[in-house]
């Protein structure tokens, strides 16, 4: 008797329509939650009536680690946050710490930082497109995207030695100049890449099934997006033109010419279009960087031990996923007093409930894909 009561109370709660509600535990081991995300879904048939995210499976206490090691030592830890776009995280950290000082970062270093940052955006967006398309069932795009992502990772390897967690930048510039081979490879890549973007679009953009699966699904209005603190392509797809590369330019972005693409409807399709357009803009930015890249040193003179003055700063950059910020409290010693990571995935994922409830089970998968989360950065 006991068992019966338990199953009744746990699984079979009545919904409004009188049908039995099914509680499905999606994840943490599920192919399309993109990591160890657990979503507890309450289903009425295939309609989602309620949803709760359980995160924290990948919590490694990165912020706590940051309080106990020096500023330079923390750079490799930032690689492990959004591991899909590691150089972007490095960039956020080094620019945040550099804000404490009035160092003159060499222009060449800034250009290389911007360039590598854009490459990491391409790598991240490619992985997003690959997995997102696979979630919706388009299998070929997955492998095509990985083919190009491989080229980007080869570039990282040429320049920094690492492929995924590259530890790209140092406080005050770069560790050493990028080899000449990197520049030729980068030129080769951006020559070939626009046609590859065209390939992905042939398979998806005007595909009727793709349109049916993405148009009008997971819609969030511009006001709601701001209210939920969304950032990055998600916010721009809802029609809010906000890009930190424009709003608060860092590295070499003040000198670069690019367009911030925005959507209109804030649905999955617009997010897709915005990200595809961002890929094109990244190519444009890299092309400009390669053309304008000045000669000169890649690192300024920095003290042997880095001790920022007492104070607090918040600095954020435009990560591929959104606004990626560091809030650092310095007490004047070699280690930060407090490191706060402002994770775009975490904040964006909080809107999942808003995006999914009332939709169908299959849409949950598509919506999670369209948010583009990386649990490493979400859980920290």
């Amino acid at each position, binding site marked *: 008797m006991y068992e019966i009561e338990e199953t009744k109370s746990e699984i079979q709660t009545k919904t409004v329509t009188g049908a039995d509600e099914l509680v499905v535990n999606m994840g943490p081991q599920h192919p399309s939650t993109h990591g160890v995300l657990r979503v507890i879904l309450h289903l009425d048939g295939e309609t989602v009536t309620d949803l709760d995210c359980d995160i924290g499976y990948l919590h490694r206490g990165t912020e706590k680690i940051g309080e106990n090691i020096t500023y330079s030592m923390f750079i490799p830890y930032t690689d492990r946050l959004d591991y899909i776009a590691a150089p972007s995280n490095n960039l956020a950290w080094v620019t945040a710490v550099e804000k404490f000082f009035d160092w003159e970062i060499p222009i060449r270093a800034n250009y290389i930082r911007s360039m590598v940052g854009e490459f990491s955006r391409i790598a991240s967006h490619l992985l997003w497109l690959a997995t997102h398309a696979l979630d919706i069932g388009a299998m070929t795009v997955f492998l095509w995207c990985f083919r190009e992502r491989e080229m980007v990772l080869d570039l990282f390897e040429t320049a920094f030695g690492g492929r995924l967690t590259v530890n790209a930048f140092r406080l005050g510039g770069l560790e050493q100049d990028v080899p000449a081979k990197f520049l030729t490879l980068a030129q080769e890549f951006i020559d070939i890449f626009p046609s590859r973007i065209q390939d992905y679009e042939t398979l998806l953009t005007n595909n009727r099934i793709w349109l049916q699966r993405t148009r009008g699904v997971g819609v969030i209005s511009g006001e709601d997006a701001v209210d939920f603190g969304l950032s990055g392509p998600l916010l721009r797809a809802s029609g809010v033109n906000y890009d930190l590369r424009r709003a608060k330019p860092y590295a070499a972005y003040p000198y670069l010419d690019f367009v911030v693409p925005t959507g209109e409807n804030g649905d999955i399709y617009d997010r897709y279009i915005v990200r595809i357009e961002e890929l094109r803009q990244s190519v444009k930015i890299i092309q400009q960087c390669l053309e304008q890249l000045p000669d000169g040193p890649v690192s300024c003179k920095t003290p042997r031990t880095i001790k920022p003055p007492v104070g607090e700063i918040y600095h954020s950059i435009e990560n591929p996923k959104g606004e990626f910020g560091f809030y650092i409290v310095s007490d004047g010693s070699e280690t930060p007093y407090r490191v706060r990571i402002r994770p775009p995935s*975490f904040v964006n994922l909080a809107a999942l409930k808003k995006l999914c409830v009332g939709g169908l089970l299959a849409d949950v998968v598509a919506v999670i894909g369209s948010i583009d989360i990386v649990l490493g950065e979400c859980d920290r």
Partner: protein
Amino acid sequence: MADESVQGENSEVDEETSDLNPEEDSKKDVGRDILDVLEAKFPGSTFDAEAFSNFEDELSITLKPDSLEEVALFLKDHEIFQFTMLVDLTAVHFPNDDLPLHVLYQLFSIEKNRRVRLKVRLQEEQSIPTVSNLWSSANWMEREVFDLFGIDFSGHPDLRRILMPDDWGSHPMLKSYPLEGKGERVYDKPQRKEIGE
């Protein structure tokens, strides 16, 4: 550094922050307009502004916990500032202070491309009103601060642990949390029921 009169009233708080700003003159005007408006609107309460170096986006305004709700609402709905986005919400622990827990709100105005940081200082065990009714993004971030610092946000709709396991006994981002040894793993189920229900 802020207005003289404000500084006078809050001298004990400012002792620590005064050495943040070696060049007083250059940053006197950073965020002056926001402070003026706030002081005109809330004559009874006190504000204390500080800015690191002279970055315009590094303005922080320190508030009393009880005035947080109305100031936040005012700043959000103000027709000029329009701080419609809560970018970040976090806390810092200063165990030796009188008011050891600082809760920080990073506000951002997309219209004006302007940032301001609200800072609230709390006693241990003191609760603070939630802002999740003003900005939906505060929901998860307040949960996180509760999880890692143990700060109770009164009025929060769903205050549960978010990153740590549900039955984790303590709050790891506090400076008092041991870094090694078995002391850190204190499982304490009743506490979870008390706060998270």
